[in-house]
């Protein structure tokens, strides 16, 4: 490891890290916001569930590099536009979470739903104040998987020349130089762990009624 090089490059590395965070986190939030209503829809209708889960499965199958290249055709963007990466990762996040949200709502005990109804909760009130909060642990487990894989997938965009931590890999390859590669891998893993930890904390904060054990 050449720490002197790291010191000289620190501004650039912080810039790349910032882009990496944006490209990984924005799709995560967008994906969750889209997956919540879709998952609820799949949960409500027995006919929609296999359809949505099937389409999600097919979308999840498309390799990331291929999706990054094909999206400009659909969106009308340039190939170097970071928007393609945001759109592609949003698609993956939605594809992963639709099923998770539907299963989370399904996991809410029928007694709980009945109790909410008996206490006078209307349909949407029961959904927002009872069913969704009870389903939070299942949803956040899915969100953790999406967050960690998004961080790894963003770095693939370096092959197209979109700046983020993956650029350290291509740079290291061209220079035959280990330092940027190792720095990039370490930062990616640390970023994934931080996001993972934040979701665990958020889950605990949203579900204060669960016993305080380390989530796994």
């Amino acid at each position, binding site marked *: 490891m050449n720490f002197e090089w790291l010191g000289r490059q620190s501004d650039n590395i912080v810039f790349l890290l910032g882009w990496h965070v944006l490209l990984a986190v924005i799709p995560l939030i967008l994906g969750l916001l889209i997956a919540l209503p879709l998952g609820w829809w799949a949960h409500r209708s027995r006919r929609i569930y296999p359809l949505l889960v099937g389409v999600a499965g*097919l979308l999840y*199958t498309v390799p990331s590099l291929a999706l990054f*290249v094909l999206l400009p055709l659909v969106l009308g963007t340039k190939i170097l536009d970071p928007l393609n990466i945001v759109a592609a990762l949003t698609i993956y996040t939605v594809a992963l979470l639709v099923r998770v949200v539907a299963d989370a709502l399904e996991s809410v005990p029928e007694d709980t739903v009945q109790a909410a109804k008996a206490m006078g909760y209307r349909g949407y009130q029961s959904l927002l104040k009872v069913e969704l909060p009870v389903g939070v642990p299942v949803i956040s487990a899915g969100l953790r998987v999406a967050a960690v894989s998004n961080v790894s997938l963003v770095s*693939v965009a*370096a*092959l197209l*020349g979109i700046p983020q931590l993956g650029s350290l890999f291509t740079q*290291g390859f061209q220079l035959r130089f280990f330092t940027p590669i190792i720095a990039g891998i370490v930062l990616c*893993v640390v970023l*994934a762990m931080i996001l993972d930890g934040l979701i665990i904390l958020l889950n605990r904060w949203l579900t204060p009624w669960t016993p305080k054990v380390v989530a796994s």
Partner: protein
Amino acid sequence: MNYLFDPRHWSGADSIPTLIGEHLLYSLIALAIAAIIAVPLGIYIGVTGKGVFLIAGLANALRALPSVGLLILLVLLISPAFPSKMGYILPSLIVLVLLAVPPILTNTYAGVRAVDAAAVDAARGMGFRTMKILTDVQLPCSLPLVLSGVRSALLQIISTATIAAYISLGGLGRLLIDGKAQNDYSQMVAGAVLVALLALFFDQLLAFITRRVVSPGLTRRTIKSASPAEPVKTPVTV
């Protein structure tokens, strides 16, 4: 789409069929090696309960590792020792295997764990030896989960083998990387479409194989000839 339908790209040394062949060859070799490592290990951990910590730790840690970084790191480490093509084929295969082991391992473990304990007890009661219980009861019962692990491993491999074109591995990723280098977007699109189709095809193929080899008794789908033509009606008495 011009690139894809140009007949010049369908024959010769670096033609589309050759690239598809290379992509499949590397993918299937990596899948075979991963399965040879992960299935027995998963069965061992599932049956004995030893090394369960490996399962959760390994799966999460490897998901966080960026495959591009790992690929490039290994190429720089290994290629000086192998002057020939092995310099990039070997690191690529190592990364593909590394990425494919966790899904197969965790699913095999979960599959063996999920086998109904009553079925194992019944087999033992019928005089099955431990080995026969494993091959005739536990393995067939865990097959759906094992195959679903193989399915996600293969998708991961096909996807990552595309990326490995960056470090000069053959396969469909070539069209994407060379297209990028030559500013030839239609070549990139051709590569992207073909890789996506390849992934979708193999995903559906494995889904089909799963339906064929998994015992219908496990999936609760009844075989047509075995189910009675008319459902037996129970008389209603009030």
